[in-house]
């Protein structure tokens, strides 16, 4: 009950703050919301592109992540080093630079579609983070349970599939959802290669209508909406997968 009260108060305070700010800005910046609805198709197109890009990139990032985690936890020194090298490179490289390298660098040698250049950059980049998440998940499985599997006579592969992976996956869900939210936000950077995601579309609307502030406010709202929905979905999934 006290929580409901404090939330209501907070709601009023925040709403009041924004209303006040909006009024103050209005003194010097003439808000013109009327032009925005005319461009709703452009926004929608951008939204769809952002979602497509994110979902496909997530798929590949998870795939890369699994491979990276397996390499980094494997017994082979070569695989381990290769995995470490991969993670080192992509975690120390700004995503913007990866996108530029892929599209303008790599793209100048072979013909590569903007969309797939975006997918490739995001997948490679996020794959390193997802790999680290999975690796931590694998390493968090209690070693005693692995020993129990050995003592039963299970083969290495059986131990991995029956004992390690199911638990590692559950452990990885919360940070994975966080990474997915990051991925959606990071995807805004692909607008630099004129990939028609929602960030680029908002910029277009802004320059065409001169209603720049309005367009970007809409854009901010869209990102909040997507990422919050993902977080909620993630919490639901987390609760369903929890081991009592």
């Amino acid at each position, binding site marked *: 009950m006290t929580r409901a009260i404090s939330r209501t108060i907070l709601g009023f305070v925040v709403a009041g703050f924004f209303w006040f700010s909006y009024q103050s800005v209005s003194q010097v910046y003439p808000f013109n919301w009327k032009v925005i609805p005319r461009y709703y198709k452009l926004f929608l197109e951008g939204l769809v592109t952002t979602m497509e890009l994110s979902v496909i990139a997530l798929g590949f990032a998870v795939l890369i992540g699994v491979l990276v985690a397996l390499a980094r936890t494997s017994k082979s020194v070569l695989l381990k080093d290769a995995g470490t090298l991969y993670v080192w490179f992509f975690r120390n490289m700004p995503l913007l630079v990866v996108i530029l390298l892929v599209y303008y660098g790599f793209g100048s040698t072979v013909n590569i579609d903007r969309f797939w250049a975006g997918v490739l950059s995001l997948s490679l980049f996020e794959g390193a983070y997802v790999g680290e998440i999975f690796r931590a998940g694998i390493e968090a499985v209690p070693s005693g*349970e692995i*020993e*129990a599997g050995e*003592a*039963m*006579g*299970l083969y290495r592969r059986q131990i991995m599939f029956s004992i390690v992976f199911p*638990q590692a996956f559950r452990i990885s869900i919360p940070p994975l959802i966080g990474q997915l939210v990051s991925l959606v936000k990071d995807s805004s950077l692909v607008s630099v290669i004129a990939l028609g995601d929602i960030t680029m579309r908002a910029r277009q609307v802004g320059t065409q209508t001169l209603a720049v502030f309005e367009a970007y406010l809409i854009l901010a709202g869209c990102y909040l909406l997507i990422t919050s929905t993902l977080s909620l979905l993630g919490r639901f999934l987390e609760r369903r997968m929890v*081991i*009592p």
Partner: protein
Amino acid sequence: MKDKEILRIENLSKSFGELKVLKDVSFEVRKGDVIAILGPSGAGKTTLLRCINRLVDPDSGQILFGGNPVKSDRKSIRHFRSKVGFVFQRFNLVSHLRVVDNVALPLVKVRGENWRKAREIAAKQLGQVGLSDKITNYPSQLSGGQQQRVGIARALVMEPAIVLLDEPTSALDPSLVGEVMRVIKRLSAEGRTMIIVTHEVGFARNIASRVLFMKDGLLINDTIPEDFFESEDSEITDFLTDLSAIV
């Protein structure tokens, strides 16, 4: 006539770095033996047990199972392990599997049983350790004593020729030791072959058929309980005095 030999340990040695944990340990296990391994901590008891089922690879020496040396290829080790039940100090149940599936797992993965049949067998085994009403629970929902009884059921479900128990009651709250010891006692009454590393002197005295005493990686004494507890060897009397001083 003596009972059939099940297991023979020959000249087992193991070092961790500079530290020699096992020094040339040899003994044999006959069918129906209940062997209690006693000794101060750091004596190498647990390492000995873990070397037997190859959770730890010994540096030298060999293990004969039913008269044949256990080879080091993964098929031979798998076969051998399926015949040797292992009960861990900290239970080591698989936490995302329900109790019944924990016990059914080796039947499915090693013996190739289907899950339905395996669960039936597992449920029966769990009934024998008094946990029929817990089979759909997860390990974390059980007390330590209950978890250890699941651990014992899991070790028995493959109908092993011998069961190794590594301090099965050491991690338990004192009030829960009894329920686990009762199960272990029943196993010995059923004539199961067991090696148990334990600090329960009462068990060694009253239930065990043999007592092995270890110190500093050496197997110092291998005898029947009556002789062990009457021994005048100062290392044994010191150990027993220390133990009773704690209690």
